[in-house]
Each structure stands twice: as structure tokens, then as C-alpha cells.
């Protein structure tokens, strides 16, 4: 069954954002290293952009 993600709300104008990317991130701290996805060997970061104001935002992904 496909996973449904919650749309991110723009922290600048409140509009619904579009997720256009995700990136595997190397951990930068010991705390982040404990949170890595063992199947990917890295952290996942999601990238979203607001179609209304054009600003971007990020959040941890899965």
C-alpha cells in the first residue's frame, strides 16, 4: 500500500508546498548518526517549495 505523506505548509505564507526533492545526507553529529536509516546508510531530507511565495523549506524524510 502506497505511503501517504502530509503536505508541508509554507512557514512564510501558509500555502501548501510542493515536495520536489529529497537527498541522502551524511550525519553531521553523533546524534544524527544514531538516527540514520540503516537500509540507506544515511539521513533523508525532504525539500519543498511554495508555489505561492516561491520560498523553500526542508524537513526530515523517511
Amino acid at each position, binding site marked *: 500500500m502506497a505511503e501517504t505523506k502530509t503536505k508541508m505548509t509554507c512557514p512564510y505564507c501558509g500555502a501548501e508546498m510542493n515536495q*520536489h526533492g529529497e*537527498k541522502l545526507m551524511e550525519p553531521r553529529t553523533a546524534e544524527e548518526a544514531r538516527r540514520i536509516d540503516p537500509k540507506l546508510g544515511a539521513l533523508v531530507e525532504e525539500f519543498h517549495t511554495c*508555489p505561492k511565495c*516561491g520560498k523553500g523549506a526542508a524537513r526530515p524524510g523517511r
Partner: protein
Amino acid sequence: MPSERPLNIPVLLGTTRKGRMSAHAARFLLEQVGKRERVVTELIDITKVSLPIDDAGEAIKDKDLSEKMNSADGLVIVAPEYNHSFPGLLKHVLDSNLKEYIHKAVGIAGVSAGPFGGTRVIQNCLAPMRELGFVTIFFDVNFSNVFTLFDESGNLLDPSFARRTDKFLNELIWMASTLRYGRENIPLK
């Protein structure tokens, strides 16, 4: 439908050296970008970005720079060649952001005192640009022999640069427009 907002393409002056000739190149490019319709620009001078050197990366993010990069749709980087590569402080500044760059277009102008016009700094910039999330274009601007390319007032003495810069900006604006549409409208599957 394309956005009604003008494209925002700042010019980043990537050196702090005293007497830097790259400042003339950056001002020339700023003027050229500023002539384009529906494009806004500004000069971001890395000497004005206050970053500590006892830490690195997003931990030292400068709020003003972060906001400028977040609002940008593309970026022109003006980089002199230092020992065949980019200035360390330019990398330090760029490394302080990440989400601000994802899926945005970047064009690079190399500057050198010799005849190669910063080709090596441009080549060495490509790998970090990719990792930072930028999309590089295949046009560059090469300011060769920079000490004789501009007069004392910073006026460009070789008129062929206007035509070359025109091609560079056509490509950068196309890429920035296309990527903005994608960022705002096309969801990642």
C-alpha cells in the same frame, strides 16, 4: 502556468582579496542581469557575510544570506582562480546553506590574471555545486587577463563579452525558469 513573480538571480562575488579585480567582473554581470526583463538581481559580496571560521556548514548559517538564497531562483557566481581552484572562503560561505539551493540554476564566471579565464576554478566548482543541489549550466563566462580587461574605473574594454554574456544569461534564465516551474508544480513521485 508560469509564475507571475520576476525571476530572482543574484550575483555572488566570491573573493575577499584586497584589490580584487573580480569585483569589476561581478559589477559587469550585475549590470547585464539587471537589463533583463522580469529578472531582479543584487550583488552578494562575501566580504559582507559575517561567518565564523571556528565552525562550518549549516551550523553557522547567516540569516540574511539564507533568506537571499531562499528567495533566489538562480545564481551567478563570480570566482577568481586561486591555486587552480576556488577561494576557500567562497566554499565556506556556500557550505553554510543547503536547502536554499536545491534545484536552482547556477552559472559560473571564472576570473584569472592569465589567459585561461578561470577555466580551472569553474571545473573545480562543478562537483560541489552538484552536491549542494544546484543545477549547473553549460555556458560559462571567462574573464582572462583581467588586469588588462578592465580600465581603472572598472569598465570592460573587450566588447565581445557583452555577446558572450548574453548567451550565458539566456541559458541561465531558461534553466532558472524551468527549475522554478518544477520546484513549485511538479511533485516528486
